[in-house]
């Protein structure tokens, strides 16, 4: 297993380099950070030329990529615009842990910008993932064990409703109902946005209260998705010979379900969880935006809109590393759940 993990990590290095190159080129072609620097007015031509030079955006994309990857502290750059590179570069490059500084929030290190948001995203996404898993398991298993009952049919109908609703609709409806209408009706209403009320402070109670609506919006769709997979997997497992044997041996029903059936039905769910793991870090772009949750998804969107290459690249590369790691973790979990699997 150890050799397998090392091999997978080594394989991921060229993969990440290729991903980073493709993303860098794509990002360079989707937007111009200088176009938005004039605020509500166009950027002045003389400022555009100067900024392009100072920020290194006048260089060919290959040179920009090399500077991003290995830094520019080994060469001289032209800061004053006299055409003579006479100032030593100061960037160390991603390979030496320097993700550069944001173009938008000038001078602030990318890693600092990202790190400010990571805890907020995890704070929302980990409980959301737990709620999704637990409710998905309960609903899916219950539905499978009572196949074609009216409860199963009701769950199936609700699942499809949840499945087919866009998250922004759920989010906006929940704000309207639980924040606006509840207040109008004199009921205790939930906060419409933010992570906490700044006038009260970031207390556990405040965060919990503000987390309810975004968590509900995320969970509503994903519980529907997970419950369908679990129902399907449980139905397949429950018709297997070993379950029939267990029943014939007179094992108690809950023992058959929880020890034999659910463990085996959980294998495909591990794949699903493995695929969803990166979203713990990536955040939920739409949900975070609507509920003004200061997480990674919103950070990504805010900086993508202004073509802030260093921050966007920083986020996607960290996510790419997380995707690779989560896939390795998924493989390890497979082996733990199914002793027949060997690497």
């Amino acid at each position, binding site marked *: 297993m150890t050799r397998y993990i090392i091999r997978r990590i080594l394989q991921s290095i060229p993969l990440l380099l290729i991903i980073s190159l493709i993303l860098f080129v794509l990002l360079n072609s989707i*937007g111009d950070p200088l*176009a938005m620097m004039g*605020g509500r007015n166009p950027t*002045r031509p003389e400022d555009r030329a100067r900024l392009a030079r100072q920020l290194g955006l006048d260089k060919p994309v290959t040179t920009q990529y090399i500077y991003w990857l290995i830094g520019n502290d080994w060469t001289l750059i032209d800061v004053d615009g006299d055409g003579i590179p006479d100032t030593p570069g100061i960037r160390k490059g991603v390979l030496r842990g320097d993700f550069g500084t944001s173009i938008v929030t*000038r001078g602030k290190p990318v890693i600092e*910008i990202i790190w400010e948001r990571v805890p907020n995203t995890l704070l929302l996404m980990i409980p959301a993932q737990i709620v999704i898993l637990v409710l998905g398991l309960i609903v899916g298993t219950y539905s499978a064990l009572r196949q074609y009952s009216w409860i199963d049919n009701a769950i199936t109908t609700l699942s499809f409703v949840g499945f087919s609703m866009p998250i922004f609709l759920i989010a906006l409806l929940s704000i309207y109902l639980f924040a606006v209408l509840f207040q109008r009706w004199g009921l205790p209403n939930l906060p419409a*946005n933010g992570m906490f009320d700044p006038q009260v*402070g970031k207390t556990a109670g405040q*965060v919990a209260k503000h987390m309810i609506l975004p968590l509900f919006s995320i969970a509503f769709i994903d519980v529907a998705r997970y419950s369908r997979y679990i129902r399907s997997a449980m139905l397949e497992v429950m018709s297997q010979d070993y379950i029939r044997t267990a029943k014939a041996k007179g094992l108690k029903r809950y023992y058959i379900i929880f020890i034999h059936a659910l463990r085996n039905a959980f294998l495909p769910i591990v794949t699903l969880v493995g695929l969803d793991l990166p979203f713990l870090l990536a955040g939920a772009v739409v949900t975070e935006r609507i509920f003004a949750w200061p997480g990674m998804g919103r950070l990504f969107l805010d900086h993508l809109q202004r073509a802030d290459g260093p921050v966007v690249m920083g986020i996607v590369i960290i996510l790419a590393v997380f995707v690779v790691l989560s896939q390795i973790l998924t493989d390890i979990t497979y082996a733990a759940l199914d002793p027949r699997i060997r690497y």
Partner: protein
Amino acid sequence: MQKSKSIPLLIAIILILSLALAACQQAAPEPAPEESGEVVVPEEPVVEEPAAERKVATFIWTQEFDNLNPLYTNMWFSSITQQIWNASAWNFDIENNPNPVLVTEIPSLENGGISADGRTITIKLRDDIVWSDNTPITAEDFVFTYEMVTNPSNIVTTSYPYNLITAISTPDELTVVAEFEEAFVPWVANLWRFVLPKHVLQPVFDAEGTIDAAPWNLAPTVSAGPYVFAEWESGSYTRFVRNENYYNEPAKIDEIFFRFVPDDASQVAALRTGDGDLGTFISQADIPTLEAAGVEVFAVVSGYDEGWFIYFGEEAHPALSDVRVRQAIALCFDRPSINRDLLLGLTEPAVTYWDNTPYANPNLDAYPYDPAAGMALLDEAGWVDSNGDGIRDKDGVELTLIHGTTSREIRQDTQAVAQQNLAECGIQLDLLSYSADVYFQSYGGGGPLPTGELDIGQFSSTEAFPDPDTSRWLCNEIPTDEYPDGINDQKICDPELDELFRLQSTQIDFEERQQTIWHIGEIMYENVYWLGVWQDLDTWAVSARLTNVNISGADPFYSIAEWDIVQ
């Protein structure tokens, strides 16, 4: 079985830890910092009156500040906030007239602040102005500001107009003299709009050779406005507290929070539920809902006018080179109904690029909606429907124009109306929409209007409000492969217009300049170089809690110290 029992416990632990993590990070905000260096002497206990409740206002911003140092941002949401915590030499009142703030009087020819040739601008500072840490604000701070803007080590957003200054001097510590190579007329809207604290930033510059990463940029704890920065929670809010050393009447509200709520619908929800006291860029569709919830909506003149920018480059549709076709477009486009129905009657069609300012030519009226007159002009120009397909044509070329704008909802609605209006006159309008960052790209960046992808672009613009100066229509601003950053996106080169635009930028006398710009407006109107669609007023939503609110278009928070809260 042991494992299954532990799962709920594990979940509970994770949830508790998550909430604890949130709680540990920060407690409730602290009250305003006391700026006293005096030794506190214990006194006899006295019976104190109960402290008055702190007055706290919450403003909802749909964009988070990128930077607070004015050198490093042109973002509107950040720039207008400067008036809260920073100070400029002068600000603009509700009539958009300049009022002295840090100076004793507005420079003029009469008081000698402006030299006869318009090249020298002298400001006289008040002798009682101090930074929030009680350090006097002097001419040295202004010179330092100039030096930081123009120093190539600082990656500033714009160096204009300081890059035009040829010499700067300080005859005494309260006088700053800036000299320009040529007469610099639009100084009032561009010069000394902010000042940096030399005593805070000079040491940073000396140590690092740049102030790009100075902590002050994101946490300007020393400032010169009625409020002073207190904290910035990334992605959540920024808090400002009253500046106790403010040199004018102290602010009435104790604290101001700017909460960052990026979604428009969420912003409206926050205003309706009372979570926010003020918001801006309110969509017209949301105004009735907000007013029903007791939120007052103001429309403020900010110099912006939404218009159609007709393309004149080589790739332009041949019909657009004929002024009769352009006038026909103006007559066939029902702009009054756009303003009445889509914009709820809050606005009117813009007539000139300078509507609602003294530079708007009062002798011009908006083109009426008169499709019959428009069609007559098209017939006269030879554009007729010869093949019976419902679209006019000439010499085998169909009168099909490509119209492009951003994805903003009101613009999309306008496109749909315009398409229907022009179709009735036999003009087909093909519609395109873009995200703002793509749409506003320059020629070099492949922007759709300057590269000729569009025949007509639509957006809202002003350059130096409340000053009328613009270089948008100068011939030498036409972008080319050699000059890809030129801002004359329409590629219009009208020698007469070019000469007049250059003339106005040198006219110191207000009335002479006004006449020139009225003439410019007339030429642009008659030639339909630019067709105003609506006067793009800034909409502000203000809760009933806030009182004494006056908002100016150029400096929305110019009177923030006078704003109050009804508890």
